[in-house]
């Protein structure tokens, strides 16, 4: 699903001095994996997420998404790749205000090549357990419900890759756990998931953990089962 080869990202500060956010990241994520990218604030995990999500381009190195080299893609091309291949889940849900749940779920279809399929949106809401609240406005939903809507939205265009950025960061632990439970189920149904977090407990739900430190991969391996049960 994902291949990166010596990916690096260098920002320029206002005064022109370069800052290296990512250095020589080489990793490979297979289909159906559930991978956590963990790192503290400033580790470069957000920069990595932006590149993996095709929101940003690497300064050097290669990024292959589903076999397609997207490293040198233009804005326009990356928009299309995001539309087809990537579903985003954000920490702050980022649902559109004054809009119903089902309208939010349908939204990505507006920018895809296929027509808006309300039935699909409804069944996705069913899948995340919100079928009954499809026509509620976002403001009428709880945080956990909003995140479920966001997950359904991320799945609308049937993307092979689901990218979640601190999906439980704004939720209390019980609700957070249920969201992680949902993601685990989706993974069990075959959805490839890459989840970025700084939180060890959240990280424990994944089967594989990549730790980023100072813009480099510090460790990459299967989760310690004992920690997951803790």
């Amino acid at each position, binding site marked *: 699903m994902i291949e990166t080869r010596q990916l690096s990202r260098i920002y320029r500060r206002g005064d022109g001095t370069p800052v290296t956010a990512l250095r020589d990241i080489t990793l490979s994520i297979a289909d159906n994996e559930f991978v956590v990218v963990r790192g503290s604030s400033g580790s470069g995990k957000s920069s990595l997420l*932006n590149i993996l*999500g095709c*929101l*940003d381009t690497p300064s050097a190195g290669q990024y292959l998404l589903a076999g397609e080299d997207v490293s040198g893609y233009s*804005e*326009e091309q990356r*928009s*299309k790749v*995001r*539309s*087809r291949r990537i*579903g*985003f889940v*954000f*920490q*702050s849900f*980022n649902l*559109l*205000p*004054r*809009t119903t749940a089902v*309208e939010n779920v349908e*939204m*990505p279809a*507006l*920018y*895809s090549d296929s*027509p*808006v399929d309300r039935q699909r949106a409804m069944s996705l809401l069913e899948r995340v357990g919100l079928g009954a609240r499809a026509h509620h406005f976002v403001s009428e939903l709880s945080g956990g419900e909003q995140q479920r809507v966001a997950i359904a*939205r*991320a799945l*609308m*265009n049937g993307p092979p890759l689901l990218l979640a950025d601190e999906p439980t960061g704004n939720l209390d632990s019980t609700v957070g756990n249920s969201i992680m439970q949902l993601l685990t189920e989706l993974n069990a149904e075959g959805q490839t998931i890459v989840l970025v977090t700084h939180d060890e407990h959240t990280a424990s739900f994944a089967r594989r953990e990549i730790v980023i430190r100072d813009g480099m991969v510090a460790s990459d391996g299967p989760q310690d089962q004992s920690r997951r049960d803790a």
Partner: protein
Amino acid sequence: MILGNTVGLAWRSLVRNKLRSFFMMLGVIIGVAALTTLASVGEATQQETLRQFKRMVGTFDTLTVRPGASATRGMPSLSVVEPTLKFEDGAAVAAVPGVRRVARVQQVFDLDVIYRDRSTTPGLFGASTEWADIRGETVTAGEHLTEEDERSLARVVVIGEDVRTSLFPDEDPLGKIVRIADVPFEVKGVLASNGVGPGGSSLDNMVVIPVTTASKRLFNREYLTNLIVQVEDPEQSDTVAERVRAVLRERHRLAESAPDDFNIGSPRASVAQVTAVGTTLGRVMNGVAWIATLIGGVMIMALMLVGVSERRREIGVRRAVGATRGDIRLQFVVETAVIAGVGGLLGILLGIGGATVAALLQKLPPAYLWSSIGMAAVLSVVIGLLFGLLPAWRAAQVDPIEALRS
């Protein structure tokens, strides 16, 4: 992204932000309402002018031939016109193909008409019998002049409603003898009222006598003040006018190089002249309405720009799920256009209401200038598209990474 979806999206945004949308539209609503009202009030006034003109002239399918080279404004009087138009010219013009009939007229404006101790100074028309037919005049009492009256130089008169009220306020005028320039005339009929002409003067302050009587018994003049020529097909009036001109030039033996010693006018042309003038005030107000609409566009743009910064997160999300810059640009342009278009629509409704009220206040039948109203509608959408460009461009520039950073 499909345009229909975008319009739906824009509509949803408008409906769910009613107050904001209303304020955005306000300028366009006012501007377009003003444009619509002004255009329609202008149209109603113009139509009224046309109606008044028609009442004065009778029909629109006529040409008026007057003596003298230059077109004179208003009604010619026998004492001031050149003696170039003769009775026989009338007969000759009547024979021109395309001419239905011709009325020969001698008119004078400063003659007293006296009945016992009462007196009035109406317009006096010496007119052949065709006159009443062409103008569609009807009598409310008695009867019209006849050809027999014309042949016998009868001293009979048909009076207008104003003359009846001033000379015969409470008696039956029929058969009574009035004196015109000391010549006795018997009242033969009373004309139905024609109301008020352009400029507000009464069309009923007149008397009609046979044109032959006027010529031989009153004025001793062998020439006419005008010929009223009714054409068979109003569409052909220009062609017929040319033929009439040729006939008259030949009859008057005018050399090739000599100018016409008569002129031919059509009410159509006169009305065009009257209504084309327009008022300076009207134009100024129209300009103000245009400016108001433009300011409305600027208001929309300003509020949309604010909207773009408030909706950075929304833009970021849309970009993240696959919207291209073009999609975002389109969404914002369409949104502005929809807001301006709806504003324009509301403005038109308001303007139609305003025009109706204005017409009722002026006691005119309301008229709506649909071409201007349609243009106002198009204008509002164009303004929306135009002033939507900058906000849309700004929206498309939003960096999704920045926008999504929480």
